[in-house]
């Protein structure tokens, strides 16, 4: 066990897998000698060699495409897309190729690739270093989509993603790299060292994809969330004084329907929180899913707390970010009904 921030935990996951499996290799923009703009691959080239951890051309489509070809050969490439905003040039490769290869070839070929990418705002990155594109991936049959909220989960989930024989989009909320951010941007940064999930085993372990985690049990209502918003929601629940159950989905697809529906069936109320824009965000699917499964238990409309349906602005970042105030408001409003 070591105290790790999320960057170190991710680094450790890749290190462990590079060590265990000669078919694992890591590439992406600036990930080689330099170790990545967020330092997630620092030291890995020096340790595992230039053939196994290397820089790629600035061509996200080419990165994913070559990874698919390597996957078809039998390797397990782990690629980094420098910001989730820049996955889009690779979107066709992810949708038309990575996610469809197994089905269309009836299992002759498949693409066991992992696409890591930092997502989300709160670092003053402006429109194109802040987006959370997870929802569009969840619409694509054949892709898995994961987003951890702690160093412990990050390592265990990344190892499971690398070992998975299907393509996995692994989104890392960059605002959580250094600490469990609760949305109060005007307060001092909390380091992971002071958080239990900042204690991370040094060796191999995995967290199965598709299992949500109840991070705060409660009876009054259910909060469905993931990524940075897990910590924002926890803070908001404390502030609200409402005994809400907070569920960290961790994996958006496959989704842990049982944990979600069991909780809402108990509480009868539900708030969904994510940083991405509202319309057709993943909250839409979650809301409809809960409604389909728990209609007769619901005592109040399901509320969404999300980023606005605008680009992520630079100066007004904190007006865009769905902070604790908005979560508290939603909690109160579902309790009122």
């Amino acid at each position, binding site marked *: 066990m070591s105290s790790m921030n999320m960057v170190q935990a991710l680094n450790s996951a890749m290190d462990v897998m590079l060590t265990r499996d000669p078919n694992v290799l890591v590439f992406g923009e600036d990930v080689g000698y330099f170790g990545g703009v967020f330092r997630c691959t620092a030291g890995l080239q020096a340790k595992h060699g230039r053939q196994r951890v290397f820089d790629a051309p600035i061509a996200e489509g080419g990165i994913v*495409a*070559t990874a698919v070809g390597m996957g*078809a*050969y039998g390797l397990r*490439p782990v690629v980094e897309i420098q910001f989730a905003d820049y996955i889009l040039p690779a979107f066709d490769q992810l949708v*038309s190729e990575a996610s469809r290869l*197994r089905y269309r070839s*009836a299992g002759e070929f498949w693409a066991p690739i992992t696409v890591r990418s930092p997502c989300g705002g709160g670092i003053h990155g402006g429109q194109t270093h802040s987006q959370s594109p997870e929802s569009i991936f969840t619409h694509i049959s054949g892709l898995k989509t994961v987003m951890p909220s702690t160093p412990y989960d990050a390592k265990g989930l990344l190892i499971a993603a690398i070992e998975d024989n299907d393509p996995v989009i692994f989104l890392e909320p960059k605002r959580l790299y250094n600490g469990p951010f609760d949305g109060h941007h005007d307060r001092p940064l909390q380091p992971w060292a002071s958080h239990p999930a900042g204690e991370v085993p040094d060796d191999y372990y995995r967290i199965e994809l598709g299992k949500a985690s109840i991070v705060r049990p409660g009876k009054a209502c259910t909060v469905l969330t993931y990524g940075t918003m897990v910590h924002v929601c926890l803070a908001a629940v404390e502030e609200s004084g409402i005994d809400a159950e907070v569920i960290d989905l961790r994996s958006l697809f496959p989704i842990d*329907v049982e944990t979600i529906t069991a909780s809402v069936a108990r509480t009868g109320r539900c708030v969904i929180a994510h940083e991405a824009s509202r319309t057709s965000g993943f909250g839409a699917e979650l809301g409809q899913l809960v409604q389909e499964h728990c209609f007769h238990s619901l005592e109040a409309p399901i509320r969404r707390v999300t980023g606005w349906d605008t680009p992520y602005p630079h100066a007004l970042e904190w007006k865009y970010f769905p902070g604790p105030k908005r979560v508290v408001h939603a909690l109160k409003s579902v309790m009122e009904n």
Partner: protein
Amino acid sequence: MNAESPLAVSPAPLELHVPEPAARPGDAPDFSHLHIPPAGIVPRPATDAPESSMRELPYQLIRVLDGQGKAVGPWNPKLSAERLRHGLRTMLRTRAFDERMVRLQRTGKTSFYIKSTGEEAIGVAQAFALNRDDMCFTSYRQQGLLFARDWPMVDLICQIFNNRKDRLKGRQLPVLYSAREAGYYSLSGNVGSRFPHAVGWAMASAYKRDTRIASAWIGDGTSAEGDFHYALTFASVYHAPVILNVVNNQWAISTPQAIAGGNEATFASRALGFGLPGLRVDGNDFLAVYAATEWAAERARRNLGATLIELYTYRAAAHSTSDDPSKYRPEGEANAWPLGDPVERLKQHLIGLGEWSEERHAAVIAEAEEEVRAAVKEAESHGTLHSGDDDLESLFEDVFETMPQHLRDQLDELRSIG
């Protein structure tokens, strides 16, 4: 700003240039603008020659068979008569297969087919020049490769019929084959998107210190996709052991190769900007195609990196069974194609060598037709399109390695509701 610049003074208005082919329906076919150099004149560099010494190659046209069907010049691969006969036979089998499949489509036994007529030398000769375990990332027009690798016709027809024995479980449009054992990578309807997979596969082979190489094919039209650029970039940077082929058959459905830039430069010359050798080859010349591919394969296998090959040919048939080329190109354009027909040219060569005859030719065609007929019959015994036998479960399999719960639920829904 540029008061001193001469053109600041009232220049003439600009005008948008939109290229057109030399002839359209109603016109006579016109290939007078094409420069076809004689066979045998292009030098053949050593495979480890420096790229800087090979920069003329993309502007030349590698040809081995001359007008009389003689093999001439340094690119003559000097294949044995046995291999040549095998090549001719394989092209004839390919052609017989194509013809028959189009007839089956007309009778409604399948919904769709794509012929390779006039381009058979490409799939066949290139397969001959590769090892059987080299992985091929084709487009939908290199079926000759499968026949060269002795892949069973029945298997392909079952895919075309989407019947019980279709290994792809009816999931794919006809001809979008996948045959891993034949080194034939899974096709998709999207054009171009597998081209960079070949580079990734080749990088993986190098990474694993394997000896297998990859080969990929893309159309003239499709070379405009970003995937083409990714493939060249990654192949160049990492010296990937891959052959990147552009099949320039002059047309992309109704769109002339000029709209992909073909009037401005050869497709082979795209290699130059990446420091790769670019070979421009008479695609209807079995020997030239073989020789160029063999050269590129040797480079790749000697770890000298990738080669771009432009195969200069003509799409003699419709784009697909959904297409009607009389709507956009002149009648008889295929016959006017100055590089002739690959089958006729190899036949002429073999006859000139005293290794073939009209009689043998006719006999092989008859044999090939019989082979196809028998294969169709066998395939039909496993069902044809819409012949029932719906395996509902297979609709939900292989989306993931193991079927997730929500797909089980949807399968139940389908079973109970319809």
